[in-house]
């Protein structure tokens, strides 16, 4: 860190970092380029690294041939509602876990960690049976409820880390000034925590937006499918229509990338704080 960097060292560093950046970005570039080629141009030699003329035909096809508008609405609705509710619930549980000592605390944290270790597929069968009995199969509300539950453990752990970074003195001062504990949490603590809460929400939203296996299990009818489930349907047929597929992939990736760009610093902080503290 303090050592002066030699010219060779600097050159190696810049080369390496640049190469990795190119490798990271290239798949995204390639799928985007593919999506803007006219359907016939995708399968012609030599491969074009820049489309001769930009065509929006693949995108138009998504909305006319497939019900992509429906999938988009479903995904947006499910991810937004589940992400919001899960974040709100996690704020409460994370607050208690960060600020209070009580006997069952360690076991509760362990219970949250265990959900991350066990393969979720073991729960798919019984979950389907249970949701059928509750008449929540092929129902967006059903999927939302399940997603809320899936998001809670990790976002609780993440938010707990953010709470612990805020000094106790802040609430204590508010409570001395006559705030109730509840008032102190909502009027003083949450405004300070805003970036962390936004990061947790974005993390939850993106996870719900991307989720595949639960949605494949629980949603049957075309009108209720989320985007990943629909994409999975595109594969099932033997010949993949790479034109539609690439356009759909771009439309799926872009919103999450924009959201992540907003919050990447705080998400990184949330991911790392737990592990580095040990």
């Amino acid at each position, binding site marked *: 860190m303090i050592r002066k960097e030699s010219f060779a060292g600097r050159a190696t560093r810049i080369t390496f970092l640049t190469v990795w950046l190119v490798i*990271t*970005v290239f798949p995204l570039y390639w799928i985007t380029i593919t999506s803007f080629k006219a359907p016939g141009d995708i399968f012609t030699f030599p491969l074009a690294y820049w489309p001769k003329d930009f065509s929006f035909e693949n995108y138009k096809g998504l909305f006319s041939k497939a019900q992509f508008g429906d999938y988009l609405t479903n995904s947006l609705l499910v991810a937004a509602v589940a992400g919001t509710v899960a974040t709100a619930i*996690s704020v409460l549980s994370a607050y208690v876990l960060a600020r209070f000592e009580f006997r069952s605390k360690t076991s509760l944290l362990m219970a949250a960690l265990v959900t991350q270790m066990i393969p979720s*597929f073991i729960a798919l069968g019984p979950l389907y049976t249970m949701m059928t009995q509750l008449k929540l199969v092929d129902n967006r509300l059903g999927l939302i409820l399940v997603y809320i539950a899936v998001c809670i453990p990790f976002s609780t752990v993440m938010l707990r880390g953010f709470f612990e970074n805020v000094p106790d003195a802040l609430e204590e001062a508010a409570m001395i000034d006559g705030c109730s504990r509840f008032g102190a949490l909502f009027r003083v603590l949450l405004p300070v925590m805003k970036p962390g809460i936004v990061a947790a929400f974005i993390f939850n939203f993106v996870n719900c937006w991307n989720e595949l296996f639960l949605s494949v299990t629980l949603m049957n009818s075309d009108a209720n499918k989320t985007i990943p489930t629909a994409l999975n349907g595109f594969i099932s047929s033997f010949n993949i229509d790479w034109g539609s597929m690439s356009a759909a992939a771009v439309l799926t990736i872009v919103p999450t990338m924009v959201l992540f760009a907003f919050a990447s610093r705080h998400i990184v902080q949330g*991911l790392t704080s737990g592990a580095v503290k040990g």
Partner: protein
Amino acid sequence: MSLSTSKQAGRPTRRGARPAPLKTTDPRSRKPVFTIRRSLGIAGFMAPAALFVAVFIYYPMISGSQMAFRNWNLNDLTDTSWVGFKNFQTIFSDPVFYTVLDNTLIWVVASLVPQLVIGFAIALWLRRRFRFRGLYQALIFFPWAISGFLIGILFRWMFNSEFGVVNDLLSKVGLIDEPIPWLAEPKTAMVAVIIANVWYGVTFFAIMILAALQSIPDELYEAAELDGAGKVRTLFQVTIPYIRATLALTVLLRVIWIFNFPDIIFGMTGGGPSNETHIVTTWMITITQQGDYGKASALGLIVVALLLVFSVFYLMATREKKGARS
């Protein structure tokens, strides 16, 4: 507490013989005072989270575990009686299971090692401040915004044997004469899915290791430089020992995640050609889709057992070294 009582009892304190191991009270920890109001408050704040996780995660997980010991097939639910370990026997006598185990081992090790090495290198190089560091970090972070399934699809397209860009680039550079049918051959298919996973996983290591590196005090490096330690020696004798705990934990987390991460393979090959890229969890999905929930659950329990045994041994191994150092 116990420290003060022993003093009051007038017992001789052996402070000279042993550095007092008892910590004085941590200012952050609050002494539990049991009042009904406080307990109700805690319970009330925890209740929504606990309820959701109990109903939609724990209940299905536990009831899924008992399916492992039942004859539970969606195609024929007339007889769902207890069958003991029959589902486990079916798995252990299935030759596919052993292919799948081999594949899982290759998948985990061959993905993890490059992720760790490249991630470590990136973290070391990112430690030095430069103008676009923040932007760079945000850019290499972006694979994390994409679902594993979509990553599988992206790479499936790039590894396409006829119109894939990988073959095109390789032949342009002159490394190959004719296109490689990547996803149609067992060996190359495995290489391809692992490349996709490395692409995805490097960032996580880079971020975790960078955070750990930034916690190393500068004085340590100054001391090492004064002692005349070279770059390589500093790396192995200052940097790595200091961040060992984080490294060990990150590797453990990644092993568990990669083991339980069927998404990329599912999107890229679906386990094909002829089961050759199936890992335990993708195989489990296939079995679930066939409706044999009993067998799938048994396989799930085997996964849990394997990971648990691994975690215990791993934690023991990494902890022992730590004890020896101090």
